[in-house]
């Protein structure tokens, strides 16, 4: 069921212009900003790339994920699906998997920067590997949030806006709370802080767990939201 849903969603997604436009936009913006960072630093570093790419994913993944369930709800196909005894969790997991795979495919050409850096310098390969691992995990969490937002509404723009708001809130969770008592707690929810560790070359098991937990928690809630629709 998961594989069938993922396959169908992948076909639908890649026959729409969305992933192509998103990918082209992502690479053009990231490349301009990253090359300007390289110019400033004159160091063979991949580290500045990851926060730029991470922020772009925060903005663009909600666009990729907005149609997953919202479009099905709008078109009435979700109610049709739920009318038959289909398990909700594989359905939601399949939609998440398709969007995650699409997001990773969008991200993939960015790996080109690694050989370019090697060509012009001697970068440390450790932070390159961990940085991309961090982006893969961040994408998983952002896709989860996108699917959850999409499960709550039948409107794609609303789903995208909700997902964008939540993703931005998590990205900036560590900001503006320096002296407050809740600073430490909020900072733990900061996806940019977690990504910074990966970009620096460190893998914290807690950071891996955080991204997995956000994705899993979002999918559990998304499945519950779809289920509640069945019961209406």
């Amino acid at each position, binding site marked *: 069921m998961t594989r069938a849903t993922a396959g169908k969603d992948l076909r639908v997604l890649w026959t729409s212009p969305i992933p*192509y436009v998103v990918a082209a936009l992502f690479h053009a913006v990231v490349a301009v900003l990253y090359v300007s960072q390289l110019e400033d630093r004159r160091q063979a570093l991949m580290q500045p790339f990851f926060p730029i790419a991470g922020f772009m994913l925060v903005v663009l993944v909600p666009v990729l994920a907005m149609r997953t369930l919202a479009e099905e709800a709008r078109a009435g196909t979700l109610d049709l699906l739920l009318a038959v005894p289909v398990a909700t969790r594989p359905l939601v997991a399949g939609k998440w998997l398709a969007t995650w795979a699409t997001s990773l495919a969008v991200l993939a050409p960015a790996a080109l920067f690694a050989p370019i850096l090697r060509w012009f310098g001697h970068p440390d390969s450790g932070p390159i590997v961990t940085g991309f691992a961090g982006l893969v995990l961040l994408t998983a969490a952002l896709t989860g949030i996108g699917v959850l937002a999409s499960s709550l509404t039948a409107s794609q723009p609303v789903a995208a806006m909700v997902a964008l708001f939540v993703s931005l809130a998590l990205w900036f969770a560590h900001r503006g709370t320096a002296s407050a008592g809740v600073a430490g707690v909020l900072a733990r929810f900061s996806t940019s802080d977690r990504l910074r560790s990966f970009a620096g070359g*460190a893998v914290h098991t*807690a950071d891996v767990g955080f991204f997995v937990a956000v994705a899993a928690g979002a999918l559990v809630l998304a499945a519950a939201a779809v289920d509640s629709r069945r019961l209406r």
Partner: protein
Amino acid sequence: MRPRRFLLVALAVAAIAFLQVVLERNDRTYDLTAEHTLSLTSETTAVVRQVHHPVRVTAFLRPEEAGRPEEAALLDRYHRLNRRITYRVIDPDAAPGETRRLDIDPVFGGMALEQGTRVERAPTVTEQDVTAGLARLLRRHVPTLCAATGHGEAAIDATVNDGLSTAAALLRENGFRLRAIDLLVEPAVPDGCDGLLLVRPTAPLGPAQQAVGAYLAGGGRAVVLTDPVSSVDLNPLLAPYGVGIDRGIVFESAPDAHLRGDPTSLVVRQYQGGTPVARGLPPTVFPGAQGVTSAEHLERGIAVAAFAQSSSASYLSRRAERAEFDPNNDVRGPITVAAAVDRSATVAGKAQRTRLVVTGDADFAANGSIGDAGNSRLVIQASEWVTLQEDLVTVDANLPTVRPLALTDARRRYVLFLTVGVVPGLILLAGVMVWAVRRGR
């Protein structure tokens, strides 16, 4: 949603949150950087493991400071290594009371380490400063280094190029108390001195020589920095310990063993003798050194480690004005320029241990050169060793290698063409092709 289903969903979310809390508390870190720049050094680890009572580190950093996340991450590494070390990062503007209580400069910030009623301070939140602060807290006895004066020695408060004010500040930061003693007025080393600093005396020591000799014979410790510019003969003082000074100046011919254009500024990259003084020491620079000799036959109980030497392409010139080897007068290299002496003896049934570090150059420790390469570290390690504190070592953080990028204008244009033009263009082309194929069906 049915209550049972709602409960199941709530339980699932709670289980995920609980697992994350467990992971946060038992976090493991894998540092994949080439130089392990995100890991604490083995020296720091050794010091941190000696902390058996709670230590609270307070870093005073403004929210807008660029390195704040990295500095907080550094403190977090100490906490993860030893949970007795806790930390907080506070804004000095937001907490003026704490800034005053811990005597931190509200403008420049800094760091305070508290253990019980004791407080140690440091100007920056770096691994060197945090570990040095912890080491000072751990140290029960604050060693006193007495700097000899009265015979033209380099002064510890002199800020001129050949003064020792920077070295003195560094030693204080590393937990030493410094005290100037005038051996001309009172030719005796006071009881409170854990070590004597004798740096480049330029006038004969007179009665002070006997006083220093008696101090060393009684198990005293000293760092003796001699220099070619001084004509004072210290050999009578050093001879009982199997070392001496070979006057002259070392000329170095090996290109990687001297500063460019200056064959008398030696660069020592490798150290011999396995003495703790040279343990983990980076290259050091000796700007104008004479030789340090060691006796062929040492008395029982004396060990000499000639740890810093010039290359075999060097020579000790007796006449500095002639920069060419004179086989009749000069000595072929390698020439020892620094040595550590350890003498153990039993006097009247009591064990005595004399330690000496002797160098053929004093400039390496002076304000003008102490910032070069590993010179400051040599000063600290020599002082630690003579005062029997070799377990408290100086720390160098695992610093990242500089990785220059040869990004010329032409290359930048090429990269931009490839990544901003070609890659997005190909992606859009793929999209157009898919659209065209679908339309054709």
